[in-house]
């Protein structure tokens, strides 16, 4: 069975003025369907860049990136936008909810891009909020919710359109320990009970423990062994 995400010789070079900065070097990686992968590494190691490429937020400079059998490295901006809408859910460190919309309206946002009628959109959003345990906060705006609750609304928004893949960039980075545990438990439940494939970037080894396995990045290269990790850290 072919992996859900198949990355071959993936490189990313940023050009800033006259400088070229190679952030990722020839990455090869497979992520199986139903996997919960934690990506760890020091700041500047390229983990967020890799996550952005997997989520279709950016395009690689070189190499191939296939998700669910589709080469997304070849897609243009409009096609990538359409692809993201149908295949990926995003969770960020700072929640990134729209402050003027209620929890329900925030969760409904991805569904605006579908042909679902308003009533269906509302019921889907209600189900997603129920799943993250926030049915009673549906009408609250982000400013009226705690950080942990906001992040759970963001997770509801990420899963409401039933995406193939969830990408999470430091989802607990702005949360206290208790809220972090709640969010990580929720992600773990989505992975185990609902079969969601999750790729999560984190600095926190405790957060990584919730994943099914962990990969380390250092200076744009994947380092998988404990020795390599030790070397990278030292």
């Amino acid at each position: 069975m072919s992996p859900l995400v198949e990355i071959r010789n993936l490189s990313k070079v940023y050009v800033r003025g006259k400088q070229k900065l190679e952030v990722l070097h020839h990455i090869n990686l497979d992520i199986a369907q139903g996997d919960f992968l934690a990506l760890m590494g020091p700041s500047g190691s390229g983990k967020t860049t890799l996550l952005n490429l997997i989520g279709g937020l950016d395009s690689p400079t070189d190499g191939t990136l296939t998700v669910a059998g589709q080469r997304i490295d070849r897609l243009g901006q409009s096609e990538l936008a359409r692809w993201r809408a149908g295949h990926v859910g995003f969770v960020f460190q700072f929640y990134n909810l729209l402050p003027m919309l209620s929890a329900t309206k925030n969760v409904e946002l991805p569904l605006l891009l579908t042909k679902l009628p308003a009533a269906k959109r509302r019921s889907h959003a209600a189900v997603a909020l129920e799943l993250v345990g926030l049915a009673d906060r549906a009408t609250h705006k982000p400013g009226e919710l705690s950080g942990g609750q906001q992040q759970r609304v963001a997770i509801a928004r990420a899963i409401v359109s039933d995406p193939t893949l969830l990408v999470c960039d430091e989802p607990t980075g702005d949360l206290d320990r208790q809220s972090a545990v709640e969010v990580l438990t929720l992600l773990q439940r989505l992975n185990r009970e609902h079969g969601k494939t999750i790729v999560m970037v984190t600095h926190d080894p405790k957060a990584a423990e919730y994943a099914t396995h962990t990969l380390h990045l250092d200076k744009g290269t994947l380092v998988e062994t404990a020795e390599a990790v030790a070397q990278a850290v030292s």
Partner: protein
Amino acid sequence: MKYLGLVWSALFRRKTRTIFTLLSVVAAFLLFGLLNSVRDAFASAGHSVAGASRLITISKVSFMMELPKSIYTRIQAVPGVSEVAYINWFGGIYQDPKNFFANEAVSPNLFDVYPEFKLPAAELKAFQQTRTGAVVGASLAAHFHWKIGDQIPLQATIFPQKSGSNTWTFDLVGIYHVANRSEKQQENALFFHWKYFDEARAFGNGKVGWYVEKIAQPKDADRIAAAIDALSANSDHETKTQSEDAFQTSFASQFANIGLIVGSIMGAVFFTLVLLTGNTMAQAVRERIPELAILKTIGFSNRSVLALVLAESVLLLMIGGAAGLALADLAVSFIRARLGAVPMLPVGLESWLLGLALMALIGLLVGALPARRGMRLRIVDALAGR
């Protein structure tokens, strides 16, 4: 429609700022509605119910030059002319110069040439039998609380009496009405006898300001106009016979180029509005860059983001503009009801259509740059705060 909630909530994200911007849009379109009402009133001044069935003959040299009364019978004899009236602009002042209204010395058959001026038979008879009699429009009478039997003194600004007095006193013997609502402006005039005027005035005797010809067949208007002008060809009083519309426009333009004045004011108002709302929109989008990036992250295309920002600025203009025009309509109705004798027409369909087009145009204009910025932002840079 499904994006309306999103656009609406983005618009009112900063309520105070949006409300103040809306108020400026309301004020701009209120002014637009009022000024356009004045412009329409002047533009429609020549739109008579009789239309092309009336012609006006004035001096070819200038509207201010008078014509000899002696050509009256010759004009009457032109084939196709069924009735001829003559009029002199008097320019009298009632009590105060700000009480401006048209007052004219007219021939006794004026109401035959202007059948849309409805004067009861008894009052018409009284007018024809009273040397110092005057007839006023209903709007003007209502404004000054005049009633039949009142004496109306006017101070002459052009024509003193032979006695040296500038005061002309008229006996109000009739009040005429104009049935058509859009022609109510025509009720703001006072008419008195040309014969009395000509006998009593100190100078200019035997001359009239202009002739008004009622013609039997509007299709013959060109031929009749040429025939009338031919009567005075190569004389010292050559004439120009024109349609009523053309005459009214040239008459109004004696005072000022209303269209130019109104256009200039509106241009300045809308230019200021563009700067103001443009700044607001730019600020609003700048603050929302991360939110726009999120929309793009979850799958909104560049075009969708462009459309959302443009829709927001157009909605801002539409709400404020519609409120402003509605207020202008109410204000015009109020002013007309209270003051009567003002050159203003109700805010009509044309004003609304023009207003809506301006709202959409200004909305697109002020939203264009912020929308372009939103469309072109790179997600990864925006999310990273770069």
